[in-house]
């Protein structure tokens, strides 16, 4: 292949695309609109939650079993013996300050101490519920000690609240503590309530050579985040770039400039050059979005992850590039057969479906058994290989030869895809306003 011409095509396609007004507007306007949108979405619920938090949070309790100890109830209302979740929430608020927005408010809402109010009889409690004095009413029946069942009442217009599950847990805790009160020594109580403390626990990783090291949760995250980020980038860049590719092809067909170009370059050179140039334009757009937009953190995170596990990063990058060339060329080749942009897009979608669907439906199986038959078949089949192999690499359990087989097959796939698509491209590009018949397509494929 004459790479000089591929380079000339790639350069032109890149420059012609990035200089377009529509490209600039989308590239730089998108982060602005997304920020605006995210801002609105984040601020509105925060206001709403603030309102809901200020609402009456008292929970009514009717203790027919006579087990609740009032002192324990008061201690809970004061927030003593606070649990780990609440400790974490307090820590976050201390670091992030009151402007932490929706997340802090949510945590506050979820972890705020539940205040109980006792009623002598169920009727009184129901009246208070109807009057809106309490948010919920629990009745602990007389046979609670033997049955363990409780009754729960709420008004019919009760809205959704994150705190609902928590009030039930708090009632359980109150009953638990009331049972322990006076019977269990005070120092045993934290362990009885929380036998394994997460904050005080340690985890270790035992390596194959027997070396023991402290379990590093970030390393663990990296193993899944790198393939995850790459898979996402892969999908996004293919979607963005294929849009440009199909648009470019449709324009050249419409402008009637294609025959002049094809008299100077071979169809697969043109296709390859377009892929490189427009792929670069698409990737640049993606990077701008990530860097300028609210996702700036994730770019830094990706860089940090690259340092954490370079081999995995490089592997994912390789599958990303090969996958892009494969899918991009097939989409463009098929897209060239369409008579207009919409038809081209529809034809091209077939390939993205074939690439994305199988791993999307089976990713749990792939992660669960990365050397299993399913994972291996999807990892070696060129279309599904990019995403599958990124996922498999993340598990760190795939032997090197397995990865090599996949790379070799995928390289072969890219070569075939470029030839075949070049042929389809040639066939489709010269058909102005009409679609080639299936027989013509098959004949062209035989030539390729």
């Amino acid at each position, binding site marked *: 292949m004459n790479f000089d*011409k591929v380079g000339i095509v790639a350069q*032109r396609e890149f420059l012609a695309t990035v200089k*377009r007004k529509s490209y600039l507007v989308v590239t730089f306007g998108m982060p602005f609109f997304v920020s605006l949108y995210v801002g609105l979405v984040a601020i509105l619920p925060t206001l709403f939650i603030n309102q809901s938090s200020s609402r009456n949070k008292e929970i009514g309790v009717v203790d027919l079993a006579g087990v609740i100890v009032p002192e324990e109830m008061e201690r809970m209302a004061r927030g003593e013996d606070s649990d780990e979740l609440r400790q974490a929430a307090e820590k976050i608020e201390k670091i992030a300050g009151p402007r932490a927005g929706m997340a802090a408010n949510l945590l506050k809402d979820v972890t705020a101490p539940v205040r109980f109010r006792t009623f002598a009889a169920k009727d009184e409690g129901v009246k208070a519920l109807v009057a809106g004095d309490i948010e919920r009413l629990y009745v602990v029946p007389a046979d609670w000690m033997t049955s363990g069942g409780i009754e729960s009442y709420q008004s019919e217009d009760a809205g959704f609240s994150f705190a609902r599950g928590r009030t039930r847990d708090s009632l359980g805790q109150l009953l638990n503590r009331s049972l322990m009160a006076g019977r269990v020594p005070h120092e045993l109580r934290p362990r009885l309530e929380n036998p394994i403390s997460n904050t005080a626990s340690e985890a270790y990783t035992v390596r194959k050579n027997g070396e023991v090291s402290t379990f590093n949760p970030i390393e663990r995250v990296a193993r899944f985040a790198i393939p995850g980020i790459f898979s996402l980038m892969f999908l996004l860049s293919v979607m963005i770039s294929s849009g440009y590719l199909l648009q470019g092809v449709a*324009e050249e067909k419409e402008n009637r*400039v294609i025959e*002049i170009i*094809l*008299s100077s370059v071979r169809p697969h050179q043109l296709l390859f050059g377009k892929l490189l140039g427009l792929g670069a334009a698409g990737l640049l757009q993606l990077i701008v979005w990530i860097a300028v937009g609210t996702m700036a953190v994730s770019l830094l995170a990706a860089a940090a992850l690259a340092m954490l596990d370079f081999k995995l990063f490089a592997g994912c990058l390789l599958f990303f590039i090969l996958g892009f060339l494969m899918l991009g060329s097939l989409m463009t080749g098929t897209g060239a057969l369409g008579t207009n942009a919409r038809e081209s897009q529809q034809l091209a979608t077939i390939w993205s479906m074939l690439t994305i669907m199988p791993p999307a439906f089976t990713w749990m199986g792939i992660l669960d058994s990365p050397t299993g038959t399913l994972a291996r078949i999807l990892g070696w089949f060129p279309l599904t290989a990019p995403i599958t192999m990124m996922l498999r690499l993340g598990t760190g359990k795939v032997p090197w030869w397995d990865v090599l087989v996949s790379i070799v097959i995928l390289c072969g796939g890219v070569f075939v895809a470029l030839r075949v698509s070049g042929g389809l491209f040639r066939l489709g590009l010269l058909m102005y306003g009409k679609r080639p018949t299936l*027989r013509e397509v098959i004949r062209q494929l035989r030539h390729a």
Partner: protein
Amino acid sequence: MPTLSFVHLKKTYTATIATDDVSFDVRSGEVFGLLGPNGAGKSTLLRMLMDILVPDEGSIVLDGQPVTRAERDRIGYLPEERGLYRKEKVIDVLIYFGMLKGLSRADAKARALEGLVRFELGEMAQRRTDQMSKGQQQKVQIIGTLLHEPSILVMDEPFTGLDPINTVLVKDLLRERSRKGAIVILSTHQMPLVEELCDRVAMIDHGKLVLYGDLEEIRRGHGEASVLVDAAGPLEGVPGVVRTAPAGRHTRAFLAPGTRPRDLLATLAGRGIAVDHFEVMRTPLEEIFVATVRARTGAASVPPPVPVAAGPGGGVR
């Protein structure tokens, strides 16, 4: 003297035969006319030359050797279906075309500017192509075809959309290229231009080569000899005249085989018929073209009309 040969070329689409065993040669230093009605297969032939289409059978050779990639880069091709990138500067489009033909950016730019000046578009270099008239765009396409000074120049209907002044400019250009030893192929159905420019022609109809050879010889082999006469008496019944037909202010007299124009003139003088105008008619190519196509469509199974043998590999195949 390099010769480009189309050898037994066959190309079929699903239902139609685009070219059927077509062979002819084009020599350097001549302007070669490729003629034929719409859909005859001319563009298919040219696309096969450019390797845009692959022939089912046959080949295209340059001096007996298959045309290489590098030699294809020496071809300047102006297709019938042509256009320019819209919303891009004229100079940028031309530089791109030039670079694809192997020129450096600087060379491409210099030659593009030179070409623009020659076609009186010097100030248009920085303009966007979609801000130009159709004729101006046409000129830019022609400049793009000539940037790399092609040794083989292939132009498919280059005169469509050009005003008379620019038509002259392009005609001069074609002549200039052929004088410099280039192989020039002009595909068109504007017969007067072919008569004016071409030394030899090939005519394709329904994918088949029906006429091929030296233009003068084709003329001689086809059509009846005739003269334009403005005479004081009737020409019907005059010995040597087969029939007559009005032709503007004159009468066109078709001569019997073997009768020379001077014989008729002598007969008229002998009969005392005063003659104000006497002009020997060359059979217009258009007439030969129409007659040939009609003869073929009228009798599809009958072999093509009078074969004309001329030049290497000449004649109808």
